């Protein structure tokens, strides 16, 4: 691994099941994935953190509601507050909303069915560390696989997020797989250093997997992580 491979943490919670795929994808895209355990009280030196998909704590109570009490989440919160890059995928997105690091909440799919298929998502802004390799309006094909991905915000919150340009990804017309309000597939915090999304970019980094569009997002993150790691030296 070259010196320029930025260290990106991948947190494993009890019930995470995409942590290895996330690590594999990050390595394939030039990062050095660093396994992080949910019970660790602190993060090692990292340029970014990924909260992967899965079913942390069996999705008890509400998805992500228990995982946010994991010791590592306090460290992730401080990391995010200090401007650190945090990406939450699927269950990771759910955890970030429950932890109050991202707005809204993920609810059971309107269909009540688990959905597992490719969806097209539209890039709404490309000035974020997660989207620099995309253009606004680009449509990426990335798989979703979730039972509770119906993002919800009330009208007031949605208007606020629209005003702040915090809606980063929307399902393309006719593609909304879960009933999410305003077709929202991914949102960021106000500062733009924390992003959560329901689609799984780590499952779409090689044409053999059906699409390599996920690499657009993850490579953007790796680029940004490399820059932020360089600035720390």
């Amino acid at each position: 691994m070259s010196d320029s491979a930025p260290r990106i943490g991948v947190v494993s919670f009890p019930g995470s099941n995409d942590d290895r795929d996330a690590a594999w994808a990050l390595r394939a895209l030039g990062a050095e994935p660093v396994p992080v355990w949910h019970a660790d009280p602190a993060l090692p030196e990292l340029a970014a953190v990924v909260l992967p998909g899965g079913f942390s704590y069996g999705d008890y109570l509400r998805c992500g509601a228990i995982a946010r009490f994991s010791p590592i989440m306090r460290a992730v919160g401080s990391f995010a507050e200090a401007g650190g890059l945090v990406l939450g995928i699927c269950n990771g997105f759910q955890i970030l909303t429950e932890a109050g690091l991202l707005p809204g909440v993920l609810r059971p799919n309107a269909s009540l069915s688990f959905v597992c298929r490719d969806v097209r998502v539209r890039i709404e802004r490309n000035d974020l560390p997660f989207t620099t390799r995309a253009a606004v309006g680009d449509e990426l094909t990335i798989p979703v696989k979730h039972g509770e991905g119906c993002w919800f915000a009330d009208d007031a919150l949605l208007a606020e997020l629209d005003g702040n340009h915090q809606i980063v990804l929307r399902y393309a017309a006719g593609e909304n797989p879960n009933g999410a309000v305003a077709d929202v597939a991914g949102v960021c915090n106000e500062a733009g250093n924390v992003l959560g999304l329901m689609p799984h970019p780590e499952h779409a980094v090689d044409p053999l997997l059906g699409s390599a569009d996920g690499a657009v997002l993850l490579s953007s993150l790796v680029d940004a992580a490399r820059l932020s790691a360089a600035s720390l030296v």
Partner: protein
Amino acid sequence: MLVRPKHGILDPQGEAVESSLRQLGFAVAEARVGRLVDVEIDGDDPSAVREQLERMCEQLLANPLIESYEIELPAG
């Protein structure tokens, strides 16, 4: 503590239950599904206990964006 989806919030579980009840022949207008959390907690002062239960709901048991809650203390 009784936690349930706020009115106006899509409740797919409630809709599924509602349609099943109709299939059984019950003329229900609407069903909503929430959750009941029983806790045992020691305390002599009901208002202090209630205040603790409220904080439990606010901080963990209910998500205020989508859920409302009610608290019931045993009589006596």
